[in-house]
């Protein structure tokens, strides 16, 4: 099936006049890191080119959601959390999810058990918690509200330093990022306790690829090719991790970000785990999952109207496996 598609694509590309590549822009939702390794690898390995695309990966500071820039045409594709995408769709933004990569929630609230004395979720009452800025604060904020926990929420891009200086009692972490950063900053793994959202009833998946409704309608083939190449890029990234990390380093160096091989290696492995499809699940994103997301954000006061699932989620590639070779 894949082979025929590739053949068709190549023929199509040839029809377009040989070596001419379609220029598109892609914006990841956070600073360059192994979280976006698949895209970097797809670009550097020439996979996008193979599919007739020239992709410009642009970094945007995470103050605003990159998805917002899609309908304006400022970018063609963007990756972002399901919560953000759904919220923006609910707000009336004409964006669609064309590929759901993350299959699980990696969001958690982390504490040091002994130091903070926090043993269960309710102990967070009245404490100071660092949360992510911008749209990323929706999930943890809604979660705490839903659980009836009143805490002092401090939005920071990276809460580690604040936490080390004892500015907060707990911090919101992504399993693949801040959690390991805590350990690499000297906090003993044994002392850390994580309150995962997924363990508390809200296993909401995260990273997905978005584009504007118009983009999908006018250039469905481009969307399809972009997703296919990206998926291949992810597969390649997981298969050759050492090479992948070198590519990630290149992108991080461009933004003068600290590159720790151990940390990015951890992140890459974590993404592999998160992208793995749970057995028995038919589609990569289900209506139930969207309902769960809506419920959470609705309770948090971020969404009022539930978007229509079939309009929101329009995957351009039906079936694929990122982690096994088939």
């Amino acid at each position, binding site marked *: 099936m894949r082979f025929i598609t590739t053949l068709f694509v190549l023929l199509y590309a040839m029809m377009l006049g040989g070596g001419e590549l379609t220029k598109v822009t892609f914006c990841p939702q956070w600073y360059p890191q192994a979280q976006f390794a698949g895209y970097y690898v797809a670009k550097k390995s020439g996979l996008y080119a193979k599919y007739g695309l020239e992709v410009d990966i642009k970094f945007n500071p995470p103050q*605003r959601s990159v998805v917002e820039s899609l309908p304006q045409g400022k970018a063609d594709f963007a990756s972002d959390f399901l919560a953000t995408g759904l919220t923006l769709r609910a707000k009336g933004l004409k964006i669609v999810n064309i590929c759901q990569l993350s299959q699980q929630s990696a969001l958690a609230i982390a504490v040091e058990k002994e130091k903070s004395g926090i043993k269960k979720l309710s102990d967070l009452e009245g404490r100071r918690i660092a949360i992510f800025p911008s749209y990323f604060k929706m999930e943890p904020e809604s979660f705490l509200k839903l659980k009836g926990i009143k805490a002092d929420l401090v939005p*920071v891009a990276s809460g580690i*330093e*604040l936490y*080390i*200086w004892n500015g907060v009692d707990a911090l919101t972490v992504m399993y693949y990022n801040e959690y390991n950063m805590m350990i*690499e900053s*000297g906090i003993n793994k044994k002392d850390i306790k994580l309150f995962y959202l997924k363990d508390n009833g809200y296993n909401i998946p995260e990273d997905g690829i978005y584009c504007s409704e118009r983009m999908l309608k006018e250039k469905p083939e481009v969307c399809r090719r972009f997703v296919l190449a990206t998926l291949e890029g992810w597969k390649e990234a997981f298969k050759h991790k050492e090479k992948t990390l070198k590519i990630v380093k290149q992108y991080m160096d461009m933004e003068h970000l*600290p590159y*720790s091989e151990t940390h990015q290696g951890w992140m890459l492995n974590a993404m592999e785990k998160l992208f793995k499809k749970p057995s028995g699940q038919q589609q990569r994103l289900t209506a139930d999952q969207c309902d769960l997301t809506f419920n959470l954000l609705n309770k948090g006061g971020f969404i009022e109207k539930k978007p229509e699932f079939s309009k929101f989620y329009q995957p351009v590639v039906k079936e694929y496996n990122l982690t096994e070779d088939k």
Partner: protein
Amino acid sequence: MFKNRSLAFRQCFFILLFVLVFCAIIILFITDRFYDLVLRDVEKAAASMTEATANKLDQTFQVAARVASQNALMMESGNPSEKDIQNILRKTMESISDHPEIYGVCIAFDERAYNDKDQYMMYYAYRNRGNVKLDKVGSRDYHYFYYNWFSMPKILNRAIWVEPYYDKGAGDIVMTTYSVPFYRKVDGKKVFWGVATVDLSLAWLQKIVRKTQMYKQDYACLISKTGRFITHPDVELVMNQTIFGMAKQTKNKTLENVGRNMVDGKSGFSPIARNVYGEKSWIYYTPVESNEWSLAMVFPEKELFAQLNRITWYVLGMAVLGMIGLLLIVIGITFRVTKPLRQLTELTRDFGHGNFEAEIPDFDGNDEISTLGKAFKKTQKELIEHIANLKATTAAKERIESELNIAKGIQEGILPRIFPPFPEFEEFDISSSLEPAKAVGGDLYDYFMLDRDHLCFVIGDVSGKGIPASLFMAITQTLQRTIARIGNTPGEIVTRLSRALHQNNETYMFVTYFLGVLNLQTGRLHFTNAGHNPPFMLKGDETVEKIDTLHGPPIAISDHEYGTKTIELERGTMFFMYTDGVTEAMDRGNNEFSEARLTAVLAENIYIDSPEKTVAAVRGAVKEFTAGYEQSDDITMLVLSYFGPSEKK
């Protein structure tokens, strides 16, 4: 291992082993003590050096901090206009022109806090190519409220040194910022208003740290509060890796613990398995008080202990030389002492091969080895003499034996041995057997024709055995043929023989003697028995008759007159004569063959026609009886079968 080695080797080995072990213990002990001493000295030196650098850093930080603190105060005292802010910043930069490590200063207000119009209000003054530049920054692309240098002092309510970072928006370099919050009063309450910051260039900090060096291969490394490397000889790690990430990557638990101590603000001196160059090293760390960073200096162990190692090598070298010297001396002495022993060992080997003539060196001295050597020499002399004697004796013995064999041959020659002796005579048959106890014996037998009709036969036993008896036997054997003449009776013959022998018999040897003369035509047998075993007469009806007549003592010792007896031999009669060697033949139990047994054997072995069969039977019976036991006397038999006068005439 030691059983087969020489004495010298064993001695040398054990002496040297002991010395080696003893020396090793001493060296180890001394080295250990010195190691501790050196380590303590090194720790002191490292501590003073590291702390000096940490202090220098502290000073730099404090100077910078003061700048920001002053600016914050100025913001709080009154309502500064934008122009005021710009002037303050410019003046600040001028005042710190002799502090090149300070890169820039800024004043930033909280979102929409300066006035209602501006969301962002932030001014930044910095060095740019020898000049001071002043920028107004803050925009959608530089939404600085989320940055740590702004948010941390706000949240923590205190001034703080921020983790180094790359600031694209205002500086384009890696720096660390000291940020001081300032406040204003709103409705009587103190409210956060903004921050005044000062930026320190990391490159400058690294320069300060790099200046510290005690040895060639040591290096310093500065880590931030989160363990991130601010300076490190491996530039790849700087600003990228944390000490904990490195510990995880190299699976180095010690490094992890050191890191934790460092971020906790402790001082210490610790060994680590591998430094960045892979060498075993020591690390001294001390905190930088101002911003709770930590400075460490890493010393490769081989440099720290270079001098000690050199001394140790010298000592080892001397020890080895000493050992070699000792070895040579011990070997020399041992070999000199055991040289005589070795000579004697060789001699013993020569002796074993039959070479007794080997030269034994003279041993003067009274020690044990000289005594042994002298004894050896004496033994050698006696051994040589003894062997010479033995050789002579053996030679003599062999000579005697060969002469004895010749004598045996001669003796056998004088005994009739051809059978049948008289085949032309049909009247009789004769058979004999003589087995001497030694090479030559004293038994004799003889038979010869006196004339055509008269057979003379003799059996005798000279007293004793061996050469004396054989000589006497020879005399007797020779004489009897001379003396026996037809016409004389056996008594007369025996008497004359006895007298002849007696004449020159000074040794008093005697012969038991039996002589018979048989008339072949008549069967009349005349005989004389001089002290000899009575013969037996055997007939065809299996009767064995002992002919018991004795005529006197054995011959040669007296002038006795011997008489004669006459008996008639019927046709088909055997006359069996023997010496006492037969009846006195002994078995292992010292039992004699005895006359009774002889009689019994004869009774069953009467072969009139074949006297040799009877002889053989008796001989066989005796052999069987003695069963290999040593023969003590000559065994002789003479058997005569008389068939009667011949028919032809």
